[in-house]
């Protein structure tokens, strides 16, 4: 038998070669290939967009607002500082949005529900039976696969013709004759956006703040929740993650958010070391509950909220207990039977402003009302309404507050949303 210099014969060589090829084959089968589209002028740092509607923030309200604006025919751009859409549901990991129902019937539907339903169905999950009386409010939260949800949101944006700009955030906002000039910055990108309408879905009304409109802020923020999974199976789209209360979590700016995230991660690391369990999942950032709220044309008080006041300019429903988290935890105060709060259009308009509307947890409200209004389904409802109002305002050259309410309601219904008041 012929041995080569390394002491292996031809048969050994063939055997090891075949095994090596097989191993390489296995490695290749676990990797699939796709090619990203070429970005025009990718080397050029400065880009310009002319759009009807600019949505800032792609969270619970923002992505819905953008899809709605796109579907209603507005040329729409959405900028998001993170790498995916969905915000609290996806990046925050609170992948159990609620509440879409109240007292046995659905009260929030539209684009948010379409996404939730589709992601649950695609994931083989189960939707709650709204005819059942939930003993605890969170029983009707819908468990979604956070990863699928983020991808579906992108797909629906693309289908609606919405351009997405990740890793970017506005640096300056200037008023123009027919709207706004917004300068955004991302890494390697300076984007100048000229738009007719801005929908501020940043959670903390960052654009409103840049424009100098008054905002409300509490002395102390509610704790944020950092979601992770230690030990057991990570049942995506089925079970909630473990949660860590990060007291003092504040999304006011990048510095406070950094501090909150690092505090959360440090604590998780300490638990891993102490409990000697495997870290199975860790969200990239804290789920923040509050920062700034706008001072709007109307302020929703806790009495408005708990009494289920139907505002004259109501554009969507909200439903959740008054749910103020404190240092000692939370004792949700359920709404009285039959009560379903509503959100007025004027609570989304910063006082004295034109051509800008907000949606999401920065809605003009007192702290207790906000503790119920801030949840995802309500934010999705607000997002869709803001998308409609901004689109109609852009088309008619007016400001969202001056768009006839009947037109807003009609377009919302056309796009599957449930609107307070008579059908």
């Amino acid at each position, binding site marked *: 038998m012929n041995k080569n210099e390394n002491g292996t014969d031809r048969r050994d060589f063939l055997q090891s070669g075949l095994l090596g090829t097989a191993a390489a084959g296995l490695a290749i089968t676990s990797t699939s290939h796709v090619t990203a589209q070429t970005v025009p002028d990718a080397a050029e740092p400065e880009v310009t967009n002319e759009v009807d509607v600019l949505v800032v923030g792609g969270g619970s309200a923002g992505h819905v607002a953008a899809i709605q604006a796109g579907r209603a025919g507005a040329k729409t751009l959405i900028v998001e500082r993170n790498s995916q859409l969905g915000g609290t549901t996806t990046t925050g990991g609170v992948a159990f949005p609620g509440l879409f129902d109240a*007292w046995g019937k659905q009260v929030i539907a539209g684009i948010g529900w379409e996404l939730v339903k589709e992601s649950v169905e695609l994931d083989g999950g189960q939707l709650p039976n709204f005819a059942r009386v939930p003993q605890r409010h969170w029983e009707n939260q819908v468990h979604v696969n956070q990863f699928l949800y983020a991808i579906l949101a992108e797909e629906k944006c693309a289908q609606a013709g919405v351009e997405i700009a990740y890793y970017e955030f506005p640096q300056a906002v200037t008023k123009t004759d027919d709207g706004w000039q917004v300068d955004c910055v991302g890494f390697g990108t300076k984007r100048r956006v000229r738009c007719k309408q801005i929908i501020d879905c940043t959670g903390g009304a960052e654009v409103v703040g840049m424009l100098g409109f008054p905002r409300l802020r509490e002395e102390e923020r509610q704790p944020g929740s950092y979601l992770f999974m230690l030990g057991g199976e990570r049942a995506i789209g089925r079970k909630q993650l473990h949660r860590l209360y990060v007291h003092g979590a504040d999304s006011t700016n990048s510095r406070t958010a950094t501090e909150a995230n690092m505090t959360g991660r440090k604590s998780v690391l300490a638990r891993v070391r102490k409990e000697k369990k495997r870290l199975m999942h860790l969200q990239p950032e804290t789920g923040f509950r509050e920062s700034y709220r706008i001072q709007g044309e109307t302020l929703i008080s806790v009495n408005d909220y708990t009494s289920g006041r139907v505002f004259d300019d109501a554009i969507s429903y909200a439903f959740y207990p008054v749910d103020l988290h404190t240092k000692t935890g939370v*004792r949700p105060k359920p709404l009285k*039977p039959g009560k379903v709060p509503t959100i007025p259009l004027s609570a989304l308009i910063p006082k004295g402003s034109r051509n800008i509307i907000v949606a999401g947890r920065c809605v003009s409200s007192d702290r207790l009302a906000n503790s119920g209004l801030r949840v995802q389904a309500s934010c999705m409802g607000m997002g869709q309404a803001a998308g409609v109002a901004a689109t109609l305002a852009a088309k008619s050259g007016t400001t969202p507050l001056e768009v006839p309410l009947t037109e807003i309601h009609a377009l919302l219904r056309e796009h599957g949303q449930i609107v307070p008041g008579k059908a």
Partner: protein
Amino acid sequence: MKKHQRSFVSLLTALSFVVLAVTGILAFARPFSIEVVGLHALMGFVFVGLIALHVANNLNHLSQYMRTKVLWLTLTIIAGLTGFFLWQPGPIRSILALSQNLGPAIDQFEMKDDGLVYHYSPGPHYKMALTIRAGKAFDATKPPHVAIWLENASFYHIKTLHEPDDLAVGRAALPYWDFKIRGWEEAKRKAQESGKVLSEQLEVDGVSGATQNSSFDPADYILPADPDNPMPYRLVIEIDQPGDDQPSLVYSVEIDNAAPYAFQLLDLVGYPKREEDGKNRKELWTLYFVDEQFDSALTLIDSALLTIDRN
């Protein structure tokens, strides 16, 4: 003669003690009954008198006992036990929590032509009255089955205040209450078997954070030891009109002694429907929102008003 007198007193003392012991156990284990507690108290007075005679008859023996060292040991044991029971640490409270008797409660249920009235006074400064006004469908000749119970914030049954007269028929007519009772009894049994207290046996609501619901002792909710830190609880009724071919209906109200209301109306919650627990295939009764199948059942009661006098 003296010997006969001594035997007579000793036997009377022993027999009255038997009555005291039995009524004491019944007073602990059963809901409040003026017959049982009255018998216990009155027999107690008789027992005290008999003890006085018994002591007089046995004074010589007793004085000898008093001179032994055992006296101090017995005094210490009794003083220790008295202090321990008065202090009521966790294990003692767990035993007391097994009691069905909240104390000198006055419990009265009355069915009338124009509705039902239920009075419950677990203490001299806490008087509940539940007034259920009859609706159009109320038929006093065929009175509805009614159960009234208390639940903690985790929706676990903690005490039944009123159960239907005909328990077998009532349990079938009021399946939600029956389900809750069975769950509670099973949890108690498992807790006894495993040596746990009931709050460890039942899963409590941990999702919402600091929900104060871990106690299954009704006294902790109705007459909390720490009045500055009361826990909310719910009063629930299930009512069914025989022969209306419609399921029973469940009404409830939350009672929060931290935010006391003198008057509260009960809200219609839903109707019970049998399901199966997917994982264990166990029987499960869940409430559903009232739908179009209901007509007369919705007018069985006009209103249910809970009044609490906390003075």
